[in-house]
């Protein structure tokens, strides 16, 4: 490969990295807790398939019956009370001995979904929500 082509690929990769990092920094939600409301943001992961969006969330100390989900066409709200309050002792200066009692997070979905067709399951403390996409794409006949 010619040196200028390699250089060009390296520059494109560096640019991609920079954009990715800036994007993440912008959307990075910090801190992941709020002392006033006693809420913690759960770790979540969003993956997009051809026909659906799958959201998973790690919800330790939560029982299935205490999870509330609210789905619109472009957002998913997760609220889940913990079985017991969790205390963080002697931590930091402002938030010494803070207590948390629930998880809460609103997730902006990457494309529009059909809320009525959403399905959720909860296993080993991990919540999985399947959200079928509104526009599923068109099949193309091969001539």
């Amino acid at each position: 490969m010619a040196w200028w082509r390699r250089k060009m690929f390296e520059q494109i990769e560096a640019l991609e990295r920079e954009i990715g990092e800036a994007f993440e920094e912008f959307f990075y939600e910090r801190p992941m807790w709020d002392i006033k409301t006693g809420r913690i943001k759960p770790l979540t992961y969003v993956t997009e398939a051809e026909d659906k969006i799958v959201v998973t969330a790690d919800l330790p100390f939560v029982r299935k019956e205490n999870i509330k989900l609210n789905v619109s066409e472009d957002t998913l709200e997760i609220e889940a009370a913990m079985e017991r309050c969790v205390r963080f002792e002697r931590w930091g200066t402002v938030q010494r001995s803070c207590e948390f009692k629930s998880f809460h997070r609103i997730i902006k979905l990457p494309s529009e979904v059909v809320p009525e067709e959403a399905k959720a399951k909860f296993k080993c403390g991990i919540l999985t929500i399947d959200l079928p996409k509104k526009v599923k794409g068109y099949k193309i006949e091969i001539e």
Partner: protein
Amino acid sequence: MGAEAITIVETAPVGSIKYCIVGLPDVGLVGLIAATHIIHSTEMPEVGHFESDILPPIVVIHGGDPKAPFRVYCKDKLAVITSEVPISAAILPMLARAIVDWAKSKGVELLISISGTAVQNRLDIEIPEVYGISAFSAEKQLLSKADIDLLEEGFMVGPHALILKECQKKNVPNIVLLAQSHYQYPDPGAAASIVSALNKLLSLNIDTKQLLEQAEEIRLKSRELMQRTQRSMQTMQKTQEQEFPAMYV
């Protein structure tokens, strides 16, 4: 010490070491959780830390004492190296070199890297399997004797890949243990599998009951570190571990 070198500063006398375990923030925080459990359950004292201008400018406060986030623990010829902060891809080569050079200087008989390997169906797996990798035939036999399957094909990305290469280069016996794990969520279950594998491999007797009992608390309290670790894994293209290797290369 060069500006880009990383050195291990011993703060307590450390004699020769038989086994050195390296557990760093990585997939599912498996290595870190397992390393921390070993340190706590054996009441292993801190004996040193990593120092360098290229390490992140962070000090962790524990029990009122400021500490370096990259630390070394040691008891009865067993050492554990761990970090409370994720490692950026840029410092990985220097870090791997520092760990292997230090281990070699201590006459380590076996350097064991512990981590997770992401599997999509983790929720369907009750007890995660552990796989082993080594560049040396004697260590492959050790794995076989301990009933640990070899990882036959795949990619390894990150600190353990570089530690393995460095060990190969400097002829330091090395094994990498990878437990089936969640990629993006802390996985104490996978860490327990690693501890069980170490028990078999090194004839240790570390109980995993407490680790499993505290699993929910560990998952809750390591959320933020997991999120930061995910970012560092992205920069080192960690997802390549889930790809199929090219067939004809």
